[in-house]
């Protein structure tokens, strides 16, 4: 195959990996990176490399299953491990993802307030807009909107460059790991992994690859899509950390969340960088608020065997549209209630996510090593060692993250 032909092939196959990975940087991810950069400067940059490796290893397996079986992950779990495993996993995912949705609406509300827009207007408006997009739009239209929205993440790269970091120091900190025996440092480094490798994105990636109907012959192109997507995610994370590290860290400014970071940037990196940061946060939040409820509705229906799809009406797919609508509605309402237990919801969501992840990863490894499902495309021995090591490491780290989240370090 000529180079030109393989490039064209890649263009037709690409999408799921890149979209999934971009949405991975949702409001809670951006918050973690901003806080990490402001608190520890460049010192946490090195964690991005092992995180990327872990992400690629996991996503590659999931992508491979999507291509080979043409089924979603929830489908495979239901068919091979029965209704109980699938049902309880879906319950957990629903709770965790509801928390994620709330976090995304909170991020949207905060970024809108930066622009001086009332959240009591913008949250209902945003909720209605994304509901209409899916309920009334076609699949192709939704996909195009998502792809364009992904471009806005470049705002973080631009604001990172505008902050004029010392690239030599940045490179050294990225490539050389250094540990600090500091509770907050450890918590944040685990948090970076915890917000990057999440259970729901494995389900979403496999479903979208399966739905796209990518053929076995084109698996290599699809793998490239996944790897590029994972790299982009962490390049974005990298620039968020760098921006905050250059501007906020030397001035000793601590931030609690992403919108605070955007505001705090103003005096140090200028109006434009601050605005870009806020726009990118708004974009990430609203993207998350579209995808997370959509993904949840998708895999719950997959597991239960109900009709699902963006192109379906309420009549044709009542459960699908019901779950989607309910999550958006409830997520938006919770953000608008004064004194709603937002923090509790986020903590609950992080804990449930952390508890689910090891199960999801173990299911993935068991499924991908089942020759009845994967045929000759099971993991090789060497790859199994790498993937088990990744899974065990990620599982231990998320377990620590859960413990640290439940008992915060004062």
């Amino acid at each position, binding site marked *: 195959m000529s180079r030109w032909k393989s490039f064209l092939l890649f263009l037709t196959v690409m999408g799921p990996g890149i979209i999934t990975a971009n949405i991975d940087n949702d409001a809670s991810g951006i918050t973690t990176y901003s806080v990490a950069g402001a608190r520890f400067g460049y010192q946490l940059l090195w964690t991005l490399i092992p995180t990327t490796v872990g992400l690629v290893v996991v996503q590659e397996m999931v992508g491979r299953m999507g291509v080979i079986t043409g*089924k979603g992950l929830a*489908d495979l779990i*239901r*068919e091979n491990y*029965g*209704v*109980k495993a*699938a*049902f309880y996993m879906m319950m957990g995912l629903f709770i965790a993802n509801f928390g994620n949705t709330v976090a995304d609406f909170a991020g949207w509300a905060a970024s809108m307030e930066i622009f001086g827009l009332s959240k009591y207007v913008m949250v209902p408006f945003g909720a209605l807009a994304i509901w209409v997009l899916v309920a009334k739009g076609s699949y192709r239209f939704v996909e195009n909107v998502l792809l364009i929205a992904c471009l806005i993440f470049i705002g973080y790269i631009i604001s990172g460059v505008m902050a004029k970091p010392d690239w030599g120091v940045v490179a050294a900190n990225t490539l050389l790991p250094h540990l600090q025996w500091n509770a907050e440092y450890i918590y944040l480094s685990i948090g970076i992994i915890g917000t990057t490798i999440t259970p729901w994105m494995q389900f979403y990636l496999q479903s979208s690859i399966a739905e796209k109907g990518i053929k076995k012959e084109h698996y290599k192109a699809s793998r490239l899509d996944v790897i590029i997507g994972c790299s982009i995610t962490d390049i974005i994370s990298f620039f968020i950390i760098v921006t905050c590290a250059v501007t906020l860290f030397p001035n000793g400014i601590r931030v609690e969340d992403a919108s605070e970071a955007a505001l705090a940037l103003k005096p140090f990196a200028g109006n434009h960088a601050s605005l870009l940061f806020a726009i990118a946060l708004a974009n990430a939040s609203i993207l998350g608020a579209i995808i997370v409820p959509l993904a949840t509705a998708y895999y719950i229906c997959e597991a*239960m*065997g*109900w*009709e*699902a799809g963006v192109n379906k009406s309420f*009549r044709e797919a*009542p459960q699908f549209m019901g779950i989607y609508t309910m999550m958006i509605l409830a997520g938006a309402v919770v953000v608008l209630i004064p004194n709603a237990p937002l923090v509790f919801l986020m903590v609950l969501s992080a804990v449930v996510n952390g508890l689910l992840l090891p199960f999801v990863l173990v299911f993935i490894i068991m499924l991908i090593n089942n020759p*009845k499902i994967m045929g000759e495309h099971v993991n090789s021995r060497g790859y199994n060692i790498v993937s088990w090591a990744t899974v065990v490491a990620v599982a231990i780290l998320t377990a620590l993250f859960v413990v640290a989240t439940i008992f915060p370090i004062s």
Partner: protein
Amino acid sequence: MALFGELFLSEIIRKPVFDPKGEIIGKVKDVIVVKGDPLPEIAAIIVQRKGHSFLIKWESINIFNKRIISSFLYGDSLDPYSYEEDNLLAVRDILDKQIVDANGAKVVRVNDIKLEGYNEKAVLIAVDVGMRGILRRLGAEHSSDEVLRFFRTELANNLISWNYMQPLSPELKSIALTVPRQILSELHPADIAELISQVSREEGANLFKDLDIETAADALSELMPERQAEIINSIDAEQAADIIEEMQPDEAADVLSDLPTEKAKEILEHIDREEAEDIQELLGHEEDTAGGLMTNIFVAYPPGITVAEAIERFRKDAEEIESVYYIYITDENERLVGVASLRDVLMADPQALLSDIMKKKIKSVSPETDDMVAAEIISKYNLVALPVIDADNTLLGIVSVDDVIDIILPPSAKRSRRKV
């Protein structure tokens, strides 16, 4: 041999299997399914004991029901079983699989499998695709029943008969329904009714919408009353009126009597005046009486006309009547004076008067007569139709043998309400 009523696969999985002395020889792990006639049947049970799998052939099963499963064999004489790809296993290969329609669109998932005893065999009669199946698998069927009883509702069963499944093979990725939507209208209305009664409510209403009016009318009359009401409720009054107009007045009256009064009134307003009057007349009778069963469409002529004239008139009139067995003879006040079978009329001298050939001893019933009594009369005197008259001897309608058969032996689409 193992005779049993009906049960669900999930109710026997992990159940202990006993030997003749009452010792446990293992727990049910799976069942091997083979092609049977007419439905797939269980050929063997796979049990697990201490991590090893053993095979018990169906012939060696003594008792097989929800509560107890036992074998003629003892634990030490069991055949070990190694999983073979070409065996079709119910749990491994069928349970939890996606059911797709003939166009490959997802429809539902196999939540459970229903088994029934038939000719000493356990046959797979239906798949459970509803919420009830999921709850049963989660072990929450009874508790959710209790909760729902509190709210005075009930969780419906949602089964699809095996008749509509494509033949199964091991290693299948999904199970296809054999009835694609396009060929639906080519089926006999009674078969369509059976199919509609087995799929989910929405799916059924959707299937129904694609039918032409005539088929829709025929299929509707074969459904059980609740289902009829559901479907009519889901379409607008004008469309419903078109379908009901197409039905026989007695069947139309049955459908309307199960609807909320408002909806029934609305539909009647859209129906042609004459037909609406016929239907309303029938609506006045109690359901379990000859009056509720009868139709008021029949052939009645005065006694003074000749056989030739009667045949001439009959040619025109019979066009609108579903089936005719007798010509009734009524006087100027519509009082029944005699009856002649079609055969009598055709065989008679064309110039004879109807009053000459008619039989005057007529078996008849009043509209208040119990429907079973009417059925007994029809059966006893070998009638094809039985006239219904009021106290003045006025002919109100007829109960035909078809109507009677439907109450004694309802078509399966109507019966499934009792069975499932």
